[in-house]
């Protein structure tokens, strides 16, 4: 019997048992729905992450460290290490730092255009304008390779540093500053001066120094010796950042130029072991050179680097894990529906004993009978796949704007992206699974003895 004719007969007998067919395929539809949503969500998340990274991170950027443990899992316990003045403790883990010599070595390379170490400037307090109120605020170097959006003021284009006397203030400061009467509204902040007071690291004076100070200036001189030295750095606000959906930096630090950050850092660490030591550095690879190659090349010099792609990989790993979990639920639902198919088809074989007997008496091969029932199962799988994915697509497309809004992903971004190819693959896979499930009942049908089946009583 021709395959087309078998498929047609299978479809007809399913049409004749509409309720049973639809109920069985609905079980598969649940699995198909879950799988379609997980595929769409995974794709959406990946595309979103991709967009996030490509619009924020210079693809030529390399994030360089001296200690590869920084890139390794922080959940692992690190072994104890020998003391080295170039190490520092970060998140409870002692790491090797980059020295000024390392930075210069990197700068000397002809495949790298610029190297900016990550400065860790700290200030005691900041004051706005002429107001005397002191605020605690973090200070960070402005990263020109990461896109920020401002709600007031203006920023230089991507890749350009701000001026050394300029500062960018996070939008989250505005509320407090307005409450304190320092500014009337956000726009007021632009052009305001920020006075940041940094404290030099105290060096415990020796007994001789204290004696000498006492002799020359009395008690006041001793107090001056022990009192930490401070310096005020002044900046002018040029922009207020806003929290953006596609901006990676949601920094709540006052951002200043790299040079200013260096100045503050060096002032505060002068005389300590941390002077001119950097946790990491960002290098921009010359355009036309593959950052991956530079990454491999500097590895030989004892530097470890991550490219923009590696960063993507980290995010993708998280997305893939989450997607895998949802996919797992879908597969569990499918396994349940497989038993549904087996059950339905067994009943179908019992109900149609005479029909099977007749077909076999008329010379239909056992294999064709088996195929007839397997095709019925495949049709059920197809129907379930179509119903499930259709509901997922319709529901997902309808809810996408709402999800985007709720998660504040930014206009034009969808978290559910439906692609025809994976959905088609899924439906084909469902048909194969259904056929596999239909194999047991189909075998029973194929083995049916026509004489027994056609007994009239």
């Amino acid at each position, binding site marked *: 019997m021709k395959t087309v004719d078998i498929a047609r007969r299978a479809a007809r007998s399913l049409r004749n048992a509409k309720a049973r067919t639809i109920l069985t395929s609905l079980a598969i539809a649940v699995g198909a729905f879950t799988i379609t949503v997980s595929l769409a969500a995974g794709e959406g998340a990946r595309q979103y992450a991709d967009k996030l990274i490509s619009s924020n991170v210079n693809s030529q950027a390399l994030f360089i460290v001296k200690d590869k443990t920084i890139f390794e899992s922080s959940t692992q316990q690190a072994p104890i290490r020998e003391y080295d003045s170039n190490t520092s403790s970060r998140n409870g883990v002692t790491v090797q730092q980059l020295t000024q010599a390392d930075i210069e070595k990197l700068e000397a390379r002809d495949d790298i255009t610029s190297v900016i170490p990550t400065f860790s400037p700290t200030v005691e307090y900041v004051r706005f304008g002429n107001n005397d109120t002191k605020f605690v605020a973090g200070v960070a170097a402005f990263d020109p390779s990461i896109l920020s959006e401002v709600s007031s003021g203006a920023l230089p284009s991507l890749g350009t540093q701000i001026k050394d006397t300029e500062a960018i203030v996070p939008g989250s400061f505005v509320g407090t500053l307005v409450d304190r009467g320092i500014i009337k509204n956000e726009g007021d902040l632009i052009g305001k001066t920020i006075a940041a007071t940094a404290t030099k690291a105290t060096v415990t004076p020796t007994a001789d120094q204290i004696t000498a100070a006492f002799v020359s200036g009395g008690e006041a001189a001793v107090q001056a010796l022990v009192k930490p030295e401070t310096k005020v750095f002044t900046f002018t606000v040029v922009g207020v950042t806003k929290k953006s959906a596609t901006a990676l930096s949601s920094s709540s630090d006052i951002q200043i130029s790299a040079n200013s950050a260096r100045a503050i850092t060096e002032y505060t660490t002068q005389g300590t072991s941390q002077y001119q030591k950097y946790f990491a550095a960002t290098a921009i690879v010359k355009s036309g050179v593959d950052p991956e190659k530079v990454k491999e090349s500097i590895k030989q010099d004892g530097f470890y680097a991550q490219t923009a792609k590696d960063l993507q990989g980290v995010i993708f790993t998280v997305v893939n894990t989450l997607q895998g979990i949802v996919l797992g639920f879908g597969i569990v639902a499918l396994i349940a529906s497989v038993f549904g198919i087996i059950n339905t088809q067994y009943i179908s074989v019992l109900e149609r004993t005479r029909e099977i*007997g007749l077909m076999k008496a*008329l*010379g239909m*091969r056992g294999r064709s009978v088996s195929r007839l029932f397997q095709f019925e199962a495949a049709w059920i799988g197809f129907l379930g796949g179509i119903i499930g994915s259709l509901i997922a697509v319709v529901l997902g497309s309808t809810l996408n704007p709402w999800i985007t809004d709720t998660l504040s992903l930014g206009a034009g971004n969808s978290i559910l992206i439906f692609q025809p190819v994976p959905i088609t693959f899924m439906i084909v896979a469902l048909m194969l699974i259904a056929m596999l499930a239909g194999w047991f009942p189909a075998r029973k049908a194929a083995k049916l003895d026509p004489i027994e089946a056609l007994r009239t009583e």
Partner: protein
Amino acid sequence: MIEVKNVTKTYGKKNSEFKALDDVSFTIPDGASVAIVGKSGSGKSTLMHVMSGLDHPESGEVVMNGIDILQLKNKAVDKFRAEKIGFIFQSFFVQANETCFDNVALPLEINNLSTRARKARIEEALLTVELTDKTKQKARNLSGGQKQRLAIARAIVNKPSIIFADEPTGNLDSTTGETIEDLLFSLNKQGGSTLIIVTHDSELAGKCNIQIYIKDGKIERMVGNGVSTIEEVQS
């Protein structure tokens, strides 16, 4: 010519052994109409099953056109049935959910005929049994007589050389039964295919050229065979 030689079929195991057919032999000329007559349990249905290759006896031969069908492999037997045999049953066994057209299409589909070739054959068969106007109707909407006519159309659509009819009028009232009988005999005379009717109705049996009376698995007597030669049958 159909030759049945020393066919023995037993059911059950040693102690409860039961011989459904006991050393049965006879010959039927091509184109004849034959009645296999017997009470229920006499072995007449088993004989039909053996002759159509559905059942396998322990010993004996069923030779058709020089080939012993009992020696054929399963696949070849299925092909033989699909090409050479038509069945008509007491309870019709038409598929109620299918249209008349699709019911008649089944044997042709089994024989791998193309859709186009099928259409003409099906229309011809439905015309023969006067069901042309019901072509697109579901079989469940037909009366008993119409269902049996549909079954006859399904049996003849393949132009088989033998048609087996198992109590073809058993489920019909006498008037309708007679119509079906007339149809079967006229087809037998026109088409030249051998008609083998299994029945306990001696009146129906009497209308056949040959009657084979069977009792307890043995041929009790055979009327018409030997007396009626092939020439007589065809006249």
